[in-house]
C-alpha cells in the first residue's frame, strides 16, 4: 500500500505516469465519472483549509466516489484528546482512502504508519504540501508541454513559503531549470536551498527587483506574504505589499510567460492581471482537481 507524504515520494517516471493519467482525465472526464463508485474518501482536516479540502472533495465526487470527514479539529475527536494514531485506525474502518491536513508537522506520516488505507498528506504545518507541488508540476507540464529547459522566477515570501521550497525540491530533478529568487532581504530563500543548488550546479540568482528580471522569465510563481508567519505586525505590514504584479510589470514579460500562484492571493497580483492570457493561476486550481483525481486512482490501484 502506498501513501503520499512528500512530493519526492514519487520518481519522475512515476510522476509522468500520474500526469499522463491527469491529462487523460482532463480530455475524457466522462470515462472516469464512475471510476471510484462505492469508494469513500475521508477528508480529515484538523485545521481549516477550504480550498484544498474542496479540491479533494471535488476530485472524489468527479470520480463517482463519496466523501466523509471533518473540517477542523474542534469538530473531530481530537478535541476530546484522541491521538492521530487512534483516529486513523478508526477512519480506516470507514473509508478507502484518507486526505489529512494537520497543523503538526509529520502527523500524516504517523497516520500512514498505523493506517490500513492510503493516506495523502494534504498539508502538515509548515512542512510539506505535496498535492500543491503535484498541481504546480502538472500545470507547468500541461501549459508548456514538458518540464524542462525554462527559467522560473519565484517571488514574495521565499523564507517561510513551503510551496516554494517544495516546488524547488521537485524541479531540481528536471533538466535545464534556472531559478530566479525575487524577495525582500527579510524573506530570502533559506541557505540550505541555495547550498543544494550550488552543489547540484543548478543556476540561480537572488534579486530584489521584479521589473528587472521580468523579461527573462518563462514562469513567474507569485506567493502571498502570510500574516501567521510573522511575530511582529509591523514587519508584516511593511512586507505584505512589497511586490504587486500589475499590467505595467506584465508588459515587460515575454508573450508566452505564465504566472502561477498557489492561491489564495491577496494584493500581490492586481485583479487587472486576471484577464491577461498569461495569468494561469485559476487554471492551476483546475489542474489541482485533475492531479488529485489521478492520485486517488493511483493510490487505490484503480485502472480504467
Amino acid at each position, binding site marked *: 500500500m502506498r501513501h503520499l507524504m512528500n512530493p519526492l515520494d514519487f520518481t519522475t517516471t512515476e510522476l509522468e505516469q500520474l500526469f499522463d493519467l491527469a491529462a487523460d482525465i482532463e480530455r475524457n472526464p466522462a470515462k472516469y465519472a464512475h471510476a471510484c463508485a462505492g469508494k469513500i474518501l475521508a477528508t480529515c482536516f484538523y485545521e481549516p483549509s477550504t480550498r484544498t479540502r474542496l479540491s479533494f472533495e471535488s476530485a472524489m465526487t468527479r470520480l463517482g466516489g463519496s466523501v466523509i470527514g471533518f473540517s477542523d479539529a474542534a469538530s473531530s475527536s481530537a478535541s476530546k484528546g484522541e*491521538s*492521530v*494514531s487512534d483516529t486513523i485506525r478508526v477512519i480506516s474502518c470507514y473509508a478507502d482512502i484518507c486526505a489529512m491536513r*494537520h*497543523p*503538526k*508537522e*509529520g*502527523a500524516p*506520516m*504517523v497516520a500512514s504508519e498505523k493506517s490500513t488505507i492510503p493516506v495523502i498528506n494534504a498539508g*502538515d*504545518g*509548515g*512542512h510539506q504540501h505535496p498535492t500543491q507541488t503535484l498541481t504546480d508540476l502538472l500545470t507547468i507540464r500541461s501549459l508548456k508541454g514538458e518540464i524542462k529547459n525554462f527559467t522560473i522566477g519565484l517571488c514574495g515570501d521565499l523564507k517561510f513559503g513551503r510551496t516554494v521550497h517544495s516546488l524547488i525540491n521537485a524541479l531540481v530533478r528536471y533538466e535545464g531549470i534556472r531559478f530566479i529568487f525575487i524577495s525582500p532581504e527579510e524573506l530570502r530563500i533559506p541557505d540550505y536551498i541555495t547550498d543544494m543548488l550550488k552543489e547540484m550546479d543548478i543556476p540561480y540568482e537572488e534579486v530584489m527587483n521584479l521589473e528587472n528580471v521580468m523579461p527573462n522569465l518563462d514562469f513567474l510563481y507569485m506567493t502571498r506574504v502570510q500574516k501567521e508567519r510573522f511575530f511582529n505586525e509591523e514587519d508584516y505590514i511593511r512586507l505584505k505589499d512589497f511586490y504587486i504584479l500589475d499590467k505595467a510589470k506584465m508588459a515587460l514579460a515575454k508573450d508566452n510567460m505564465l504566472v502561477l500562484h498557489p492561491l489564495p492571493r491577496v494584493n500581490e497580483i492586481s485583479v487587472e492581471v486576471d484577464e491577461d492570457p498569461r495569468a494561469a493561476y485559476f487554471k492551476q486550481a483546475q489542474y489541482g482537481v485533475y492531479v488529485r483525481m489521478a492520485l486517488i486512482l493511483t493510490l487505490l490501484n484503480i485502472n480504467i
Partner: protein
Amino acid sequence: MLNVGKIEEGFVLDHIKAGKSLSLYEHLQLDKLDCTVAIIKNAKSNKLGKKDILKVECDIDKLDLDILAFLDHSITVNVIKNGEIVEKKDLELPKMIKNVIKCHNPRCITSIEQELPHIFYLADPVKEVYRCKYCEEKYSERRKQS
C-alpha cells in the same frame, strides 16, 4: 595513581572526552546490565590530555554501538577476550536512532502524540546531520550530548 584491574571478557571504551563517561553510562543503559563496570574519570591521555575510560565486563553484543557512535564516534572500542584486546571496533554513524534524542520542534507531531518514538535519520553523513523522521527538523546539538 589509581589502578583498575584487567577484565577477562568484555570491552573497554577508551578516549572518552573527560567528564563524559557518566553520560555514556546512562545512554548505554549500563545500569541495567548485571555485570562489573569501572568508570575511570580524568585519566592521563597523550592524545587528549585527560580522558575517561569505561570498562565493562560483559558480552560485546550487549552494547549498543549505534548509540555510542551517535554520541561520539571518535571513542575507541576495544573488545577483550581472555584478558587481551582481540579487536578494535570502528564506529560508524548510525543511519537511524530511536529514542536517544528528542525532537525540539514545537510544531512536530512528536510534541503531542503520546508514546510516539523519537526517530532520527542520518540525512548528511559528511556534515553529520540528523533529521527528525516526522518533521525533518535538523538536530544540531549532537556533540553537546556526548
